[in-house]
């Protein structure tokens, strides 16, 4: 398969930035998963879709609105009523899910190229994200694994808390570079590393 070109490729420069003299509070990276797939269940078919996700990826989605699960190579979370996002390091997961989901169950939509995944981690991740998103990032309100749909002005974002101080932010590809600049600017006052 041909190599993919990320919208961040020309602007993502590894290094240390901001007030890193006082220590690094944040690590920014692009996770560039091979697959980003959206699933939607028809009313009453949510369990069937969750089972299909389990079958195709092995991920067991927990119960609850916005519930999710993350491993080092794949992740899944709910982001809207009866809608789920599945993310995998590997390419081609959309096809596998399409086979696992019957038309009576729901739909599968491949967004692997349509969304760009930015990971922000570190003790100051919450502080910086709170500059842009009006959601409660505290662990009680936003548990590990959970997903949220929100926005920063014109930029729609889905955010999964993939670890206690690690968030994966999915933005529309066309906005990715603009958001990256905004995010970096917000990180300036704390030291940050781009990896």
């Amino acid at each position, binding site marked *: *398969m*041909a*190599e*993919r*070109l*990320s*919208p961040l490729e*020309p602007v993502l420069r590894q290094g240390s930035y*901001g*007030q890193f003299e006082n220590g690094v509070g944040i690590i920014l990276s692009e996770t560039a998963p091979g697959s980003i797939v*959206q699933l*939607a269940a*028809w009313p009453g078919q949510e369990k069937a879709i969750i089972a299909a996700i389990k079958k195709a990826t092995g991920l067991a989605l927990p119960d609850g609105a916005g519930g999710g699960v993350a491993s080092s190579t794949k992740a899944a979370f709910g982001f809207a009523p009866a809608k789920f996002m599945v993310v995998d390091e590997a390419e081609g997961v959309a096809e596998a899910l399409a086979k696992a989901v019957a*038309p*009576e169950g*729901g*739909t599968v*939509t*491949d*967004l*692997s*190229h*349509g*969304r760009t995944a930015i990971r922000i981690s570190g003790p100051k991740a919450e502080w910086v994200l*709170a*500059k*842009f*998103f*009006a*959601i*409660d990032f*505290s662990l009680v*309100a936003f548990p590990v694994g959970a997903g949220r749909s929100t926005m920063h*002005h*014109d*930029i729609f974002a889905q955010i999964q808390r993939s670890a206690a101080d690690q968030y994966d932010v999915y933005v*529309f*590809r*066309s*906005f990715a*570079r*603009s*958001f990256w*600049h*905004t995010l970096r*600017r*917000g*990180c*300036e*006052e*704390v030291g940050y590393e781009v990896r």
Partner: protein
Amino acid sequence: MSPRRATSGGRIDRLRTIHFTFDGAPCTGHAGDTLASALLASGVTLFGRSFKYHRPRGVLTAGIDEPNALVTVLRGDVREPNIPATTVEIYDGLVAESQNRFPSLAWDISAINQLAGKLISAGFYYKTFMGPAIGPLKGTRFWMLCERFIRRAAGLGRAGRAADPSRYERMNAFCDVLIVGSGPAGLMAAASAADNGARVILAELDARLGGSANWSGEIIDGMPAAEWAAGLAEGLKAHNNIRVLPRTTVWGFYDGNTLAALERVTDHKERLGKGEPRHRHWVIRAKKVVLATGALERPMVFPGNDRPGVMLAGAARRYANEFGVLAGGKVALFTNNDTAYHAATALQKAGASVAAIFDVRANVSDAMRNLASDAGAEVHAGHAVVGTEGSRALAGVKVQRFDSTNGALSGESRTVEADCLLMSGGWSPAIHLASQAGGKAQWDAELQAFLAPQAAGNWIGAGAFNGSFSTAEAIAEGHAAGLAATGSKAAANDDLPVADAVAGDPAPASVFEIRANGKSFVDFQHDVTAEDVRLAHREGFVSVEHLKRYTTLGMATDQGKTSNIPGLAIMAEALGKPIPEVGTTRFRPPFAPVSVGSLAAERYGDIRAERLTPMHDWHLEHGATMYAAGLWHRPMVYGDPGETIEQSYVREAKTTRETAGIVDVSTLGKIAVQGPDAAELLDRVYTNMFSTLAIGKARYGLMLREDGIALDDGTTWRLGQNDFLMTTTTANAGKVMQHLEYFLDLIWPELKVTLTSVTDQWAGAAIGGPQARAILANCVKETPVDNTALPFMGIVHGRIAGVPVMICRLSFSGEMAFEVYCGADYGTRVWQALMDAGKPFGLVPYGLEALGTMRIEKGHVTGAELDGRTTARDLHLDWMLSKKKPFIGSAMMDRNGLATPDRLQLVGLVSLDSRALSGGAHVVEELDEQNPHGSIGHVTAACYSPALGKYIALALVKGGKARHGSRAFVSDPLRKRFGPVEIVSHHFYDAEGSRMHG
């Protein structure tokens, strides 16, 4: 040590001297000083000039309520005007200037305005400047002439023209309890809420936590109150569930317990850390709010009360106790309540000589008399100040006997020597935030103050905010509020800190004004006098809002913090009504002025995100001039060196029609419409039929709004039985998505359809022209692209450069054309492969201008024609209106107003004078360049048509179709372009479509 600096005491660091300048003169102060305290310590008495009369003014207060001492703070070329000197923390290198004076603060030429005082009383400008009714100055001219001078004289500080290089930020916060104010009440509330495990934010507008504890001079738990507060504040830091925000003004109480606060992150710093914002705009969603905002002192209204050296008693107490600064050497006091006696104590302790206390009340308690006697001050009960002496500094005060029951003065007036007069007219709880939250303030006749409306349930008051003015009450109420905010209750036996203070009577005498000869100021900054208030009364402007608007009372930068109640009281007296019957002002955000930059926050310098297509960098590398299309950046032309824009697009369009051209169409809205009812949904939203569309085929569709007006058009591709890809115009992508979602959620929830925005999933390139198919054949693998495999509106799947692509044969340009879609991350790769394959054929990339040119030649409509007022018929798209089914808009599109023959209809125009036409020009039947009239329509889009060799345009013209073949004129007085045109069909070029059908 400077003349007014006490030798000890205060919360300043005497070991650190800070150097700054005021009006160019070098000054010093200590770490912990405000600009006001440092200047007062240096013996400065003159701080500013008033708005209207340009009277000399000193500093009246010690905080955000300051009306007089406004300065401009400069950082390089960047000017921050109108900042109260009482709120500026000094730092090394601070540059501050006084305002509203020329040539200097001491000698201000506009002070001559004072002589015209009676002439320029409240509202004078409404009664004059109308000018003559006839002649050269009639109409608005005379007023505008006068206004020019008025505008120059008005205004306070000057805003700069240099862009502010600072950064501003926004911060979203969530908490269980937000506590506003860190005086004893706020600190206690924070401690008890945090102890209960709640997530707490404590906001304090000053740099130092502690509020009144810093200047009360009282003893709490056996130690100076300031130390007690510092200890408690330090203890709070040990909690990880509390965020303390000093230098943070909570200024707005919005719906849903959303509060807005301004944190001044670096205003006190000489140098900013990397990436540090100057201001941070906090938006705090708090489950509960504790309002511990204290109270603001009121001045007394009497002649000469604005002379430099006259100050609020509480402010002087604060300068003495918190900053170790003496407001004067020889001090007199004038009060209607007990608190001024504590000020006397503070001044005396700090080293001033307290001459006398004039109290309007006939009876003064023993406790207060003892305080006065300890301070060495004589108490003159039943006395009032009736005048002040001195020019730019106070020299003496005139006093007379006064009867507080009827306001009568008696006996001879005498003059007491003093360089400082401290006044207290009682205290007003700072209820601003509670008032913003809703409800009407309640007048408390005993406290002579408005108290907050009953809590709506989401905030709790504590301390002086409640009218509980003693420290002991503040401690108890703060403690109880902190517990109540976290759902528990204070108990009688809770172990609370003990405040040791001489108890006073919280109730002032009901005396607001001493009526004697001379100007008595109510609103110091706006120069509103007691006489102005009475003039408003005489002229019938008696409701509180009329009073404010007519006299401008309370409209200055301090928003009436010191003037509202005295003004109201004077009006009440004139009307012979109690104060609450005159009315209460509802407070509105902001509580104190807020920088515009903080509210723009991270959008300052970056107002809107940019949307870039997958091939964006390629376009830039190949010389594209970019064009903002909404948030998108799109190539306008790929200019060759030396070309004009017109030459570029003509070349691009011509080459496309002669050989081939390629354009980035990734910005087109793309919506995945999936599910067993997808076709049914499309039948309902499009005017034409989609359920009959075969898999692997595309169809052009038109959508109407519910009211029958055209909404959007585009092609929709059937990729599978249950799988459609809808395209929309770039501009309407979001609107169409919401339109569909609305119907799916609200009107037809029974349909099983999923809608997903896949605009960003696909990179799109449209390649068109006589050689387009040959180019594709040159690079597409795994599928043929000939007429059989890929007929008009057919779709095939194949690969280009190893990348899976989806190709649909459709045409916007009117040429044989194909849209090639691939995964966005492959966009540049596929685009480059197409360019490479096209090179032997002379393939050119083209931009929006050429795209526009070719669509005008073909008569296709876009945003300029789909302007939200046109119908399908107006645009000659009625052939798309299915009669076999209802669709959105079908019921309403035939209303007579949408079908009249004189509606604007789409036509083509051809320039008959071989000159360019322009969008926005109007069309007339008879040309009249001097007196343009009789517009029958307008040009929506225009270009030079390389295919026709003419300047052409699309236009919307009344009864357009019937005019085909007739002559008209473009009339464009704005751009002075007039000339003949022929009205023709909008299909200029290849009306039969033989080129695209091939």
